[in-house]
């Protein structure tokens, strides 16, 4: 097992270098313990950072889902109004949103795994630091400085390896969450700029505007028909006058697709 052992030797040499200090070996124990507590803090912050990133992703996932549902509704409305072109546009955008959703789902799974791993590592480090403290107190109470040397060596090598590894794991997690934060920021910008539309529905996208225009147009026609009925036929029922009027938006339809497509590059 020469290779695995070589890796171990190199790793330990570096880990020990980071810990070696102090004249009296018993002082080194205290110094090392301080470092361990610092590392524990660092690990806990790392876990919290990963959790924050995960929650942000979850928020974005919900926003994208809302966007996807909205586009699906729009495509239904457009089709019901006989506007296949508009429905196609809505579905095309929806497939773009779904692509983003898939990316986020993969990132979310990776973050969750990272969070679980770090949580376990943090618990383990806590247990080892506690064990180290107990052993440290025993050594200080029981042995002279000279005697303590070997005992301390044993206690150190176990903990320094753990510290080195956990330190590395935290560093990697930080790198990962940083690159994810950058991507999450890009999605936030997309959502805010309206390219993916505003999930709160406060800003109107062009499909909504078009659907509303069509709907208000047909409302106007209905209202016109009703008024005509009142004036012309006294109490003539809506239904009779409404049928020619309902034809009006249909007449306008052929011109619409050309106009909409022309608007879009």
């Amino acid at each position, binding site marked *: *097992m020469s290779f*695995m052992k070589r*890796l171990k030797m*190199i790793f330990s040499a570096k880990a020990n270098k980071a810990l070696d200090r102090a004249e009296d070996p018993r002082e080194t124990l205290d110094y090392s313990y301080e470092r361990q507590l610092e*590392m524990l803090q660092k690990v806990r912050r790392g876990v919290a950072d990963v959790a924050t990133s995960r929650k942000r992703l979850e928020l974005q996932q919900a926003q994208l889902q809302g966007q996807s549902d909205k586009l699906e509704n729009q495509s239904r409305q457009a089709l019901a109004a006989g506007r296949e072109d508009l429905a196609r546009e809505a579905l095309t955008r929806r497939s773009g949103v779904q692509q983003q959703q898939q990316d986020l789902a993969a990132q979310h799974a990776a973050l969750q795994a990272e969070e679980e791993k770090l949580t376990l590592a943090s618990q383990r480090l806590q247990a080892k630091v506690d064990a180290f403290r107990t052993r440290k107190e025993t050594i200080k109470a029981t042995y002279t400085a000279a005697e303590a040397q070997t005992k301390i060596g044993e206690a150190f090598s176990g903990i320094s390896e753990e510290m080195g590894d956990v330190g*590395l794991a935290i560093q990697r997690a930080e790198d990962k969450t940083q690159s994810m934060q950058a991507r999450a920021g890009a999605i936030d910008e997309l959502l805010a700029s309206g390219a993916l539309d505003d999930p709160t529905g406060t800003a109107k996208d062009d499909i909504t505007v078009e659907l509303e225009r069509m709907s208000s147009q047909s409302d106007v026609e209905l209202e016109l028909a009703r008024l005509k009925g009142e004036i012309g036929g006294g109490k003539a029922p809506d239904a009779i006058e409404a049928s020619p009027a309902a034809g009006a938006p249909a007449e306008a339809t052929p011109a619409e697709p050309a106009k909409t497509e022309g608007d879009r590059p």
Partner: protein
Amino acid sequence: MIVRILGGEGQLRVDDTHGELLNGLDSGLERAVEAGDEAGFRSALADLLAQVRTLGEPLADDELVESDALLPSDDATLEEVRAMLTDTAEGLIPG
């Protein structure tokens, strides 16, 4: 023998009777790293990790024991492992 798997996974105690099996896998991994063979490295590392996890018993959290051997985590790249072997300066241990 005690093996640590990097990436915060912790240590496992593997019975010495499995030495021969692990030795074979270990040599495979070493060859792949030295040859810069990415695919070979991936599969050798995956095999070795799988065997260690299957054969080994995780150590109790409060055990303070030095490992005899060390393995990179699943997602370690060939480059990272090579850097670990050659880079004697700091960088491995933060802070």
